[in-house]
């Protein structure tokens, strides 16, 4: 990162001292819930992500922004196990998760919402959330047990909260785009993850829905660790939290949104000047 030197201090300096391969477990895991070390992935020789070290602290609401193709979603893929890193490791909750598959990582407590709302079209809204409930992943339990009254109430409660209560028996394919986004977020919330990876929650939403989504995330941030990937600056402003700027697979800068907006390099990367 020779370009940044002089103009801006290395944005990753804060993480240098916590590399899990070099320090005791306690000293990093007490501070960070997620830590990546020497993470890189290349597709046909193209380095999509190259981050020496990066971490998300317990209870933090972190926003990752960056222009198209900056590697934001790829970073999420690496953390959630969809893509295997070419080099480096991902640590979560005190352990190395680089070799686990998606479902194992999900069971450890990383929940993910995709860029396009991924819901199961042939299931009803209610059933979508039924599948998202934690602790029901074996075939035996699913075959013989029905949902408990408590689980049913949980689902109804969350449907009420996101305003999908009246659509609870509708097939998900009949929901509007905004409703699907909310259903995907609800599914994420109900699975009670320790870390939420939320990829572009505001994509395709109206202004009002965007606001509501931001408020929901702020509310969730009170007792969850959340990583949000977003394009929409108004949305990011509303979240009012630490921002990491990615560009060409590298961390360009880190700080509050105001700081970023005054950073020439960031603006250059964003606006292509």
């Amino acid at each position, binding site marked *: 990162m020779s370009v940044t030197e002089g103009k801006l201090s290395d944005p990753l300096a804060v993480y240098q001292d916590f590399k899990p391969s070099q320090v005791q477990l306690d000293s990093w895991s007490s501070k960070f819930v997620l830590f990546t070390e020497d993470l890189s992935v290349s597709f046909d020789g193209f380095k999509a992500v190259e981050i020496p070290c990066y971490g998300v602290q317990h209870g933090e609401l972190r926003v990752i922004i960056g222009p198209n193709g900056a590697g934001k979603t790829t970073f999420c893929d690496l953390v*959630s196990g969809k893509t295997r890193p070419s080099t480096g490791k991902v640590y979560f909750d005190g352990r190395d998760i680089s070799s686990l598959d998606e479902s194992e990582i999900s069971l450890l407590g990383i929940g993910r919402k*995709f860029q396009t709302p*991924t819901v199961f*079209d042939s299931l*009803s809204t209610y059933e979508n959330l*039924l599948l998202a409930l934690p602790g029901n992943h074996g075939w035996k339990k699913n075959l013989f047990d029905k949902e408990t009254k408590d689980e049913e109430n949980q689902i109804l409660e969350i449907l009420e909260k996101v305003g999908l209560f009246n659509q609870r028996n509708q097939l998900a394919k009949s929901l509007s785009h905004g409703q699907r986004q909310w259903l995907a977020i609800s599914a994420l919330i109900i699975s009670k993850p320790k870390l939420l990876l939320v990829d572009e929650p505001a994509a395709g939403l109206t202004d009002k829905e965007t606001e509501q989504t931001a408020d929901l995330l702020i509310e969730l941030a009170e007792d969850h660790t959340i990583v949000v990937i977003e394009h929409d600056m108004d949305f990011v402003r509303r979240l009012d939290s630490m921002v990491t700027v990615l560009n060409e697979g590298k961390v360009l800068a880190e700080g509050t949104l105001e700081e970023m907006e005054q950073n020439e390099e960031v603006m250059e990367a964003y606006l292509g000047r």
Partner: protein
Amino acid sequence: MIKQNNLIESKRAFVFLCVLGFVIVPCLYLSGVLSIGDINMLGRFMTFAILAVGLDLLWGYVGILSLCQFTFFCLGAYAMGMHLAHHGGPEGIIDANGWKIPACLFVVYPYDVGESSGDALVPGFWKPFWNLPVTIILGLIIPAVVAFVLGYFVFRSRVRGVYFAILTQAIAVACWLVFCRNDVKLCGTNGLTRFDIIAPSGSFFTFNPVTATNDWKASNTGNGEIDLNQDGSVDQLDYSIADVGFSLSSSEVQLALYLITVFCLFGSYLLCRWIVNSRLGRILVAIRDDESTLSFFGYKPYNFKIFAFCVAAVLAGLAGLLYVPQMKIVTPSNMEAVRSVLVVVWVAVGGRGSLGGAILGALSVNLLYNYLTSEHDYGFFSWSPDYWPIFLGIMFVLVVLFLPKGLIEVVDKFRKRNRSESNKELEVSS
């Protein structure tokens, strides 16, 4: 309780079909409208319906297109075939181990160079099938084990969609080639045949003909003549004259087999409906919709795919077990690749994703097949059996174009109209 909007087939329809299968059809036979041949044919077609229900669970709900269902069917069928061949007829030759060589095996026995007919032996893998309960259990378990092993390697390595379909088709062809060979001692292309009786007492209580014969000898010495075929020695041939069980050609036995098949068909249907309506059924549908997202929910989709594949294979094995005593022959032609594709046609015509549709499809296509593969003269036009494939093709295209949900769609529409009419009547009366 929240109403799950899944495919709930009405109770009334189910009760009606039960009455139709268990009461009306047998009554039609007893009153002489249907011949025993018709009953036998219906029974065979119902075994195909069991096969179709299994495929529908797999293809309609989980979205896995398996093109080797008839291979699993044949695994069950050959199990029952070997069993019936063991007990087939009072003639034959006793081998060096005291087992009667099944007639169908004896005529195509693959002798090594220098061997003569006296050296033929009943192969070891035939022997467990002497016992009927063991046969039934093996006929269900072998397809399940094969499906499990196949599914474990294939689904875990994330082979999906068309690739899986091609793979299963290749497996179907490979199995067909193996079963066609004489030297695997499954009677080659002749198939297993010359079945005579079913369920003699020895098939329940003994595990091989040697003890069966000895037990029979021990309990009957002193009862006069026990060299029943008067060939100078008391052996399995005499025993099989004494312990005759039920003749497969008697109409009572055929009616009973029909009723057992109907019972098993409803059982399979209820089993699949129970699976589909459980929470696991939702997971299966979710796999069909978007398998990769489901793994981010913490599920391992391949476990559920293996489960569904095994259930479908067990149902296919059950169908095979029931088919053989009614058909009285099983040959590798049942394993041909095109047969397994036909199952897909039945399900598609009847209604993919609806268990009732699968049954409707299997029965209607096969009944049509039965009718249209004989000559009919309508005066202005005479129908030749050669037209059948063309007819089937046209029917398939028409159903796919105009009834994408299959024939069951027509039934559903009719039922809905009835329901809304009766609702109107209710409104009027209230």
